[in-house]
């Protein structure tokens, strides 16, 4: 099972007032123990930085670097926005009306052969987006729906 994560999930581990913060930290632990293989778009780091700045956090670099270290120590597959991903993302923007960043995350999941995309973003959790993703054999779920080891369709 290969799992794509987007920035909306990663930031939940950086804020203990977030709903499902504990679940995000459990996910981080699974990544660090290499129990699950995850794929992230490098675009996530820019979104995380932007969200931290928008929140008014004084050390956005420090927090972002912690997420980058999580990726390094957990052997996360980091995917650049290359030409193939760009082309898929362009299609998703046109066909599904997705925002650029959401389309990049979905395209990353498709191109890297993920079975699950975990996202807390309401745009990616729309029915028509989920239905479209299922054509690529990708299930889009929220963090609280993710059950490592059981439960998910692709287990």
């Amino acid at each position, binding site marked *: 099972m290969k799992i794509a994560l987007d*920035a*909306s*999930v990663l*930031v*939940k*581990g*950086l*804020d*203990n*007032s*977030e*709903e499902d*913060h504990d679940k995000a*930290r459990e996910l*981080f*632990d699974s990544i*660090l123990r290499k129990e699950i293989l995850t794929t992230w778009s490098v675009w996530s780091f820019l*979104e*995380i930085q*932007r*969200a*931290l700045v*928008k*929140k*008014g*956090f004084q*050390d956005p670099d*420090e*927090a972002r670097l*912690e997420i980058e*270290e*999580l990726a390094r*120590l957990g052997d996360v597959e980091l995917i650049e926005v290359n030409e193939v991903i760009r082309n898929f993302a362009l299609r998703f923007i046109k066909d599904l009306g997705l*925002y*650029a*960043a*959401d389309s990049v995350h979905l395209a990353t999941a498709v191109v890297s052969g993920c079975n699950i995309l975990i996202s*807390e*973003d*309401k*745009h990616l959790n729309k029915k028509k987006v989920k239905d479209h993703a299922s054509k690529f054999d990708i299930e889009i779920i929220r963090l609280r729906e993710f059950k490592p080891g059981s439960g998910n369709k692709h287990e």
Partner: protein
Amino acid sequence: MTGVYKFPLTIRRLVEEGYFKSEEDALTEATKLLLKEYKVLELKKRLDETARRVGKLKGKPLSKLIEEIHEEEDEL
């Protein structure tokens, strides 16, 4: 004291059984694992501290801000 370090029997056995090329190799791998474990523990502590500090800030949760950042495209 001869000054020559004698590796514990377990390590020598692991080498004999082919898990490592040499006793030094086994020790190097063990040290690497310990270092990695230390880095993981340190990262978890730093994440805890960051989450505590971010959690004290007012305003919308970071995950909602991510959605808003995407919607900024509409304002362009």
